Structure formats: C-alpha cells, structure tokens
C-alpha cells in the first residue's frame, strides 16, 4: 500500500519556484530514493514533508492522513523522522542526551514529575535508557561514546548520532538526507548495512536522498528523479539508469564523477 504520497506540491521562495507540481508515492516497506543534481529541490521537498516549509499548494498524505497542514512535531508524532544534510545535533549535550531527544514524542512525564524525579518520570527515564541501549546504541556501536559531548566527535560519528536520534522515535518512515555524504568507503558501507538491517528488523519505509550513485543504485527499490523542482521520471534503478532524459540531465555528466566523489572523500 501507499505509505507516503506527495501530490502536486508547489513551493516558492519569494519569486523563485523551488518545486513545481511534484508527485510521487512511496510504498510501505520500500527503500525509496529521490535523486537529482544539486539545487534540484530534493531537500526542499523533504523539508515540506517534515513541515519546515509550508508548500504553496498540493497535498502530502502519510498513512492515508493529510499531513499538509500539521505542525512539525505533529508530523513526527505520526511516525515520520529524519536526519539532516548538515548535521543538526544539539552541541550543548552528550550523545546519549541527543539520542534521547529523538524519543521525546514518546515521553509523557511533565515538569513537576521531572523536578521530583520520582515514580513516573524516573521509571520513564529508566525505560528510555534500556530501550536505547538494546535497540540503538549497541546496534550502531555508540555505547562507548554515550557520555561524550557531540561537539567533540568526528564527522562520521556525528552523522551516526544523527541517524540514531532519528531512529530513537522508532518511526515508520525514515527520511535520510544524504546520510553518507563526506564519508569514506568503509564508513559508507557500514552505515548502509546498518540502515538496511534496521529497515528489515523494524519494517521501516526509508526515504533516501543521496548523491553517491553507487549507493543509490545498489540499495533502492524505487527511484524518483527531479530537476529544477520538476518530476523527470521514476522507476526501478534499472529503468532509471536507462532513461535517456535522466542520462542527459544527470548521469551523463556527473555519474562517473559522483562515483569518484564517493571514493575521493575520506
């Protein structure tokens, strides 16, 4: 069934049109990739989905629910969570606290209970830590650095923490905005494996934005291509790779180079 549906979404900043009537559907449990050259409007689109931007028109439907006019935190409540292209971690906190924040929507204890740190609040914290331990920290291998401040972590680890924070809310739809950008081969491999594994384990739907074509072509079940904020085409990796339009505007000039980038950066 359709998990996320984007219908004729328009978005513009001042005069500039960022998105023009963009359409696509993400099946449940799918590994969906959205590709396109820089400035094609990929990030703008997921910002629309996670409600950082208000689309001018069009609909975004998740699990059959209209989320177009929700506030960001409500969207997260529905079971969508995301990572960020340039990591948006809370520098003033430790790794563990950052990841805990990812689970914020599931925590109920109020400020008074928190102050007394008694009964409910305390239980909740304990439960939270257990959950994170078994489901995420060990799994992503972050247990060792749980009490380090995020600011002092290397880039790769920060990316990982960002992912962990997104997973912490145990979403149904996980949006990854260039998760492996700037990572070397091993890091990339290892991260992708983790993603696939947890996807399988939790039956996640994954919405991937990535420049590293190798990754995209390997992992995706379905790929949508946009350019200048417009749909170009969509289909399985094979069909997309063959599509002349795509080759012309995208792969043609920058495929190989992107591959190199994939290797080069480390």
């Amino acid at each position, binding site marked *: 069934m359709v998990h996320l549906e984007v219908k004729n979404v328009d978005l513009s900043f001042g005069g500039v049109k960022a998105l023009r009537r963009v359409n696509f559907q993400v099946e449940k449990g799918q590994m969906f990739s959205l590709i396109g050259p820089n400035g094609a409007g990929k*990030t703008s689109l997921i*910002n629309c989905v996670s409600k*950082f931007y208000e689309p001018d028109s069009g609909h975004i439907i998740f699990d059959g629910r209209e989320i177009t006019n929700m506030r960001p935190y409500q969207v997260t409540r529905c079971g969508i969570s995301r990572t*960020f*292209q*340039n990591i*948006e971690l809370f520098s003033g906190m430790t790794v563990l606290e950052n990841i805990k924040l990812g689970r914020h929507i599931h925590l109920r204890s109020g400020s008074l209970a928190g102050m007394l740190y008694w009964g409910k609040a305390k239980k909740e914290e304990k439960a939270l830590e257990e959950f994170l331990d078994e489901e995420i920290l060990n799994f992503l291998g972050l247990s060792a650095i749980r009490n380090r401040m995020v600011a002092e972590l290397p880039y790769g680890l920060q990316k990982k923490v960002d992912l962990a924070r997104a997973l912490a809310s145990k979403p149904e739809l996980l949006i990854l905005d260039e998760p492996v950008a700037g990572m070397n081969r091993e890091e990339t491999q290892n991260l992708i494996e983790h993603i696939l594994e947890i996807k399988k384990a939790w039956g996640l739907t994954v919405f991937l934005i990535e420049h590293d074509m190798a990754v995209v072509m390997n992992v995706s079940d379905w790929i949508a291509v946009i350019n200048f904020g417009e749909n170009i085409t969509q289909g399985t990796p094979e069909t997309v790779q063959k599509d002349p339009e795509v080759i012309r505007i995208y792969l043609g000039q920058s495929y190989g180079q992107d591959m190199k980038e994939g290797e080069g950066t480390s």
Partner: protein
Amino acid sequence: MSLLIQVLIGGMTIGSIYSLIAIGFVLIFKSSGVLNFAQGSMVMAGAFFAYTFVVQLHVPIIISLIITFLLAAIIGMLIERIVLRNLRGVSIISIIMVTLGISYMIDGGALAIWGSSNFTYPKLFPSFTLTVGGIRIASVYLWSFLTAGGLLVVFLLFFKYSKLGLSMRAAADNQKVAVALGISANKILSVTWIISALVATAGGILLASISALHINLSYIGLIVFPVVILGGLDSVAGAAIGGIIVGIIESVSGVYIAPYLGGAFQQVAAFIFLMIILLVRPYGLFGTKEIKRL
C-alpha cells in the same frame, strides 16, 4: 483642537531628542549586534565633559565642544578596543552584562568627579524660542531635531555609498563574508563606537541644556529603549522615526488617557504600543528580518 495640536507638537519636541539618542544605540547594534546598555551613561558623560570645560575651566565654547567630542571619541574607541574587542563570539547576553559593567564604571566615575549635585547647564547655542500653536519651543529642540535629521541623512548616504558604510553593512550581515571581502572588522567596530559616542555626546549636551545637569541623566538610556525596538534594532531611519512616534504617543496618552487610568501612564503607553507593533511586525517597523536556515 488647538490642544491636540499642542499635544502633538509637545510630543515631537521631546521625540526629536529620543531619536537622536536612539540613533546611537542603533549604530552599535547595526555593526556589532551589541545592545549597548552603557549608551545612557555615555550621554551623561558627554554632557558633563562639555560642562566641565565651559563652566569649570572657562574654555571658549567652540573649543570646549571640540575637546568634548574628541574625549567622547577616545572613550568610545577605548571601550571597543579594551573591552569588546576581547569578547568576540561571546553570547549576546554576556555582552549586555559587559556594557552594564561599563555603565557602572562611567556612572561611578562621573559621581566621583562631579558629585551628585544639580548643576546649571551653560547656554551653548544661540538660544531663541519660537511659538507654534501656543507651544513655546526652545531652540534646543530645534537643534536636536536638526541634528537627528542631519545624522539620519548622513548615515543613510553613508551606508548607501561610502565604502566604509557598505563594508559596515556587510560586516553586520555576515562577519565571514566581510572578512572574505578583506574588510577589517576591528576598524569598522572602532569607527562605529566612535560615531556612536559622538552621537551620545551630542544628545547629552542637548538634553542637559533643557534641564539641570545631574548624573541621573543616564536614565535616558532606559527611556529610549522602546524607541530603539519600535524602529527596529538595526534601522537608523527606524530610530529617527520611532523617536518621534514614541514622543507623540507619550504626549497623547499623557493628556488623553492618563486622566482615566490614573498614574503616570505615558511610558507604559509607549511600551504597550511597542508590544502591539511587535506582534504585527516581530522585527520592529523597519528592522530587517533574520531568516531561519537549516
């Protein structure tokens, strides 16, 4: 009807002084993002310098004005050099505290040097009065009006055309870009603080010459806050116009509303108006909006 006219004129006269002093705030904020809580003290100090030279040392007026402005400039520069230059990248509120510390120093210094008596301020400019609609306007108000207007024009041109002005705006917008453009942030900041100190001094002299001189003059710093915010923290024009608006609001509310609400309503009226404006325009009347980015 004639009363209303008088009310409006009365509001504008004091408003002109508000504008003048508010411009000093704005300049500093515009270039360095600092809300200078010591501005009021700088105003007071400026007034006292002029007083000292003219009355206590009997220096001819023109010369003593020149010396006063030189001194003010030096102080402004020293504050920037010694204190704020060492506070790059410190959280804004710490900088607020630092400027408060500076104001403690200036106030204390003034108290130590001049004591806490009331002083009669010398007549520094040709003082005449003209009567408009039953209001006798002392020349001082006209001077402050002209000075504020003049400064406004000067700075508008300055920020539009002069290289330094442009670079100041660049620096205000984005330190990195400015540095990339080879603009010396330090130089810009020094210049701003000097200019702002001069403006403060001018304001101080004008303000003092319409009342007795006393160290409490520095309260004006608090009184013009609504002006600065109303106009928008980083807009010189905003400060100028905001001053007049606040002046008029205080005057109108003082005459027409206070009788029914009782108490001294005018200042509160200004703040309430400020709140309303902020709810409609969160960055003041002319302030530039900061854009959220991810």
